């Protein structure tokens, strides 16, 4: 079997997911020997920017016309497009509260000059092109990324938990912040896969992976409100990383 041709791309984001890939120190040399890495701007300068690809991994969200054009171009040349990271999957932090207020934000930030910048509303990848696979996380988890590549090399999509962080939190036997300390924790709504890292450190989940399957936001909202968390903060918290989550 010939090696799949792969590309790794970043739209607008913090490069955290590409960094996680580079952080797979133990697997990196294997990864690059199993894939025919054709286009990886962050790590290579001899990129083939035109060839057809079997797999394109795309990080970041669409925040500009340029992002949109690049994404569409990547989609055209790729058999499989994988969204990596919460920005690509859900829109991410910078998409929160942006849509609708863009002009004002630009003015405020750059003054009148801001209006000429190539800035658009924010879109998760699936809102612009067809996405074949989503690997969520802000940033993605190493083990989930390596598992995805291992599965994809065998032709299978990876299997990820769909359930919330609470279950992993219990698996680790951490104390529940929500129940014991009334700290607003997004664990019940956020999709697992991180091993409930934050509650294990006595820190509430901030939802960086986006919502779990069948997340019951309304019940969670009532529960947090009953604990005295202001509605405004609940709304912001629940939407920090997945502003497109509810509607998409």
């Amino acid at each position, binding site marked *: 079997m010939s090696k799949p041709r792969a590309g790794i791309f970043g739209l607008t984001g913090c490069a955290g997911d590409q960094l996680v890939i580079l952080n797979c120190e133990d697997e990196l040399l294997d990864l690059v020997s199993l894939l025919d890495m054709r286009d990886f701007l962050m790590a290579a300068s001899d990129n083939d920017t035109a060839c057809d690809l079997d797999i394109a991994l795309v990080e970041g969200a669409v925040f500009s016309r340029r992002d949109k054009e690049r994404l569409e171009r990547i989609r055209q040349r790729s058999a499989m497009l994988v969204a990596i990271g919460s920005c690509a999957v859900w829109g991410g932090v910078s998409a929160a509260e942006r849509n609708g207020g863009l002009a004002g934000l630009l003015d405020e930030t750059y003054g009148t000059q801001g209006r000429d910048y190539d800035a658009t509303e924010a879109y998760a990848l699936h809102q612009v092109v067809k996405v074949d696979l989503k690997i969520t996380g802000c940033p993605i988890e190493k083990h989930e990324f390596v598992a995805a590549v*291992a599965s994809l090399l065998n032709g299978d999509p990876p299997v990820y938990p769909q359930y919330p962080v*609470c279950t992993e939190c219990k698996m680790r036997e951490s104390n529940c912040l929500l129940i014991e300390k009334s700290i607003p924790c997004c664990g019940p709504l956020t999709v697992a896969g991180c091993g409930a890292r934050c509650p294990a450190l006595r820190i509430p989940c901030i939802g960086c992976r986006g919502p779990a399957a069948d997340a019951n936001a309304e019940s*969670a909202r009532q529960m947090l409100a009953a604990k005295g968390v202001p509605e405004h903060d609940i709304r912001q918290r629940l939407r920090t990383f997945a502003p497109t989550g509810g509607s998409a």
Partner: protein
Amino acid sequence: MKILKLPKDKLDYFASVVQQFGEVHAPVEQDGKYVFKRLTRWSEARLAYDRTILPPKKYFLPPKEPLLVYRPGEGYVAPAGDVQHRLVLFGVHACDVYALNILDLVFAGKYPDPYYQARRKNIAIIGIDCVPDGKCFCRSMRADFVDHGFDLFFCDIGGHYLTFVGSALGDDMVLATETLFETVSPADIDEYKRRSGAKHEAFQLDVEIRDLPEIFEMEYGSAIWDDLGAQCLSCGSCSAVCPTCYCFDMNDEAVLGSRAGTRSRNWDSCLFSTHALVAGGENFRESRSSRIKFRFYHKQRGFVAEYGRPSCVGCGRCITACPVDIDIVEVLAALRETRHAATH
């Protein structure tokens, strides 16, 4: 059953001797809650505890466990694993021992589960009695006392622990400490009875389980389930902490660049939207209310039909772990409640 007593001030010494039977794990405090953990010092053990976050189930059915390793040419092989590792769980409450006896039913049967069975053989259990708190209803579930499933069981009778010897291994532990244990006097037995009666009276919660299966059948269409479905977050906490919930998922993880891989089992929950989902998208329990109903139904009705008793032991963990305060005792009470005026 062989019954002896151990002076309380000899417990430390006994614990030190018990180490030779395996790595000692006991409840230790963790930010105000308790967890079973490997002891580095005996002084860390907290034998007067309410309940641990996770029940001892975690030792017998770990949250994530590799079952088989596949290698091309070799097929599927059970990994060397730690199932043979000898442990002593010190300080297990009666309800939790009872829950293991229930899991025994599931993991035995026509296809005994060798991983569970091996652990059950290799993990010794030293039980201890307890004082019910506001979340305990094991009395109602008939799980406040156990007569088997442990190696030793200690009951506080003042200056001593009355010690039930439940297995040959337990007897070995007693024999290994030679002269520590003493014979029981009639006064000790009276003291035991007094305390046992007091414990019986100390429960604050009570659930009537008589004809619950029938009530479940009749209330299958009750609006209670819709209300619970609207409330439940499908977070899975209740089943994770439940000593008798055993649903698991099995998944293969391939080794990078190979068909070799590991098949593991991970805790699953009937509260998850994927639990009854099949290929093609059909979901036999799509609504959250049907899933939470299933959890209660399976424990209080399905399990009774299958194994002759409910699978709940009344440990109260699901009550303490639910972020939206869904309380099994209240649910069962609500089901039993009559809501309609008598017709004649």
